[in-house]
């Protein structure tokens, strides 16, 4: 990932230190071969943890920095959309329908004569909220249940596996039509709740699998032989070694959730208009793709950029959590 300058002084230092007398040449040699030595160890013996080391690594990873900047910007416009877009996203003028880029409306106007720029900026809040909250919910619920099932095995595992099978059998769109049509509240929360309800089994299954893999490692047995309790083994030894696939799948799922919100809105069971969201705009603009492609392009582009940023972030975090890739 980022560059690691080889620091000869650090790598050789151990062999020069006192107490190395009993080292045979072979071992001294292997010591020197230690690849590059760890970067920026800082003051000798300063306590470091998995997360602080990961953070040290992330800070100088350009992939992480770029994606983090994009995400911070998204969070910013979600909180204060009026800071960069003047006017209301709901103020539309039919006489300007499908007009192209012009001063005051850099992205042009959509089929209803609404300012695409303003709507794209205001839509970020809904889309990011849906994506992030649904992903967090799915990741927390799925990985908790999945890793417990994988760790303890036996009856609880069989039970959970059957439950996930049942949830997998529910078609998402049909399930959305049935469950969300009875909801009257026009906020993002029922939509998020629905996504978590149908989304957790996927993560649970992956977490279960990677916990079972990690559980078989010798260091888990070693930790047990040295008196670690179940909870400690799960949290300290298994979770960090099993988290990578969960991060990858969760970040990809984030994009799916934002588009699923669009699909549900298109079907009329997701968010309904006074709400502004990229999903609503994308589905509203798709019939006019030949006459006014810009109205489709900008919210879709924003959606793609958001998903990309989160996937890149997830990738960078996953790599930073693996010391061997540092």
């Amino acid at each position, binding site marked *: 990932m980022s560059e690691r300058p080889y620091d000869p002084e650090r790598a050789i230092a151990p062999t020069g230190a006192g107490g190395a007398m009993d080292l045979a040449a072979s071992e001294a040699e292997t010591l020197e071969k230690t690849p590059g030595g*760890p970067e920026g160890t800082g003051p*000798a013996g300063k306590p*470091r943890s998995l997360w602080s080391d990961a953070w040290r690594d992330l800070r100088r990873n350009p992939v992480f920095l770029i994606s983090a900047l994009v995400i911070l910007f998204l969070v910013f416009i979600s909180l204060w959309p009026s800071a960069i877009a003047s006017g209301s996203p709901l103020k539309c003028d039919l006489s300007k329908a499908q007009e192209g880029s012009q001063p005051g409306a850099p992205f042009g106007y959509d089929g209803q004569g609404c300012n695409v720029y303003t709507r794209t900026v205001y839509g970020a809040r809904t889309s990011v909220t849906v994506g992030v909250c649904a992903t967090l919910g799915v990741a927390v619920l799925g990985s908790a249940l999945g890793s417990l099932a994988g760790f303890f095995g036996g009856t609880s595992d069989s039970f959970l596996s059957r439950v996930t099978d049942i949830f997998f059998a529910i078609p998402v769109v049909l399930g959305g039509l049935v469950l969300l049509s009875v909801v009257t509240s026009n906020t993002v929360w029922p939509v998020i709740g629905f996504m978590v309800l149908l989304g957790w089994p996927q993560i649970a299954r992956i977490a279960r699998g990677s916990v079972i893999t990690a559980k078989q490692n010798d*260091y888990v*047995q*070693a930790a047990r032989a*040295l*008196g670690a309790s179940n909870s400690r083994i799960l949290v300290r030894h298994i979770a960090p*070694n099993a988290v990578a696939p969960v991060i990858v799948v969760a970040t990809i799922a984030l994009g799916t959730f934002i588009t699923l919100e669009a699909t549900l809105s298109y079907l009329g069971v997701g968010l309904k208009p006074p709400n502004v969201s990229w999903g609503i705009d994308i589905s509203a603009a798709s019939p006019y793709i030949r006459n006014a492609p810009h109205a489709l392009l900008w919210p879709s582009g924003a959606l793609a950029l958001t998903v990309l940023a989160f996937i890149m972030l997830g990738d960078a975090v996953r790599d930073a959590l693996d010391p061997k890739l540092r």
Partner: protein
Amino acid sequence: MLLEVRDLQVEFRTRDGVAKAVNGVSYGVDAGETLAVLGESGSGKSVTAQAVMGILDMPPGRITGGEILFRGKDVLKLKEEERRRIRGAGMAMIFQDALSALNPVLSVGDQLGEMFVVHRGMSKKAARAKAIELMERVRIPGAAQRVGDYPHQFSGGMRQRIMIAMALALEPALIIADEPTTALDVTVQAQVMDLLADLQREYHMGLILITHDLGVVADVADRIAVMYAGKIVESAPVRDIYKAPAHPYTRGLLDSIPRLDQKGQELYAIKGLPPNLMNIPPGCAFHPRCPMAQDVCRTDVPPLYEVSEDRGSACHFWRECLHG
């Protein structure tokens, strides 16, 4: 006796049948004593150790009989929580392959320090200082600089030292080392073995050394227990065994060691294969491979005959073996 295993029996229930991995093993080790448990793969030496530590995977494993007395108390009767507290503090284990027995995502300082955090409730900072002290004790050069390094950044010998340091952390009364040097190259093997022997003397610990390498055993062990098909076939002080084995299996093992004066000759090997644990031969389990086998060996299970005061052999013909 610090640890006494009495007539331990362990079996594994699998889809294909029941594998009897340990069939009545008894051995003991005193404080300051080194017992070497010797045997081929599948002889039950590691399973016995896992049962003693309480880290046997159950199921499929099952302890069907026997007692494991640690400081006079049967640990098999303890609650899981009480047993957990003995692990690490009372008895600890050193694993064969330190690369896979150390957690790849935690720095060695974290893993060493964890012992003190878990069992002694120390702060992270104090635990870190203890970790450096331990690394110095197992003679890792530049301990203070390397405490934050990850396992893959150490050489094989250094990693095994860290594994030893982890086991030693709380100064347990008993250490079980499961083939601690098998994964290392020969020069490093000797250093690690010496270190282990030094530390054992220093702390006056009991040490159970599980190995299939007779060369390792000769220098460090006080007693040897030879295992075959889940049973102890010979148990004796180390010099007696090297002088004259009282079991044909031990003799076979000794004869299979390459020797300098044998240059050019074919190396001796015990003929045949270790028995299938789902179908152990009747009588003496070793009889199909034994050069001295008679009819009685096919029908009667030999008890552990008393060869001398501190020596036993499970062979009907131990006298012939000893003097032949």
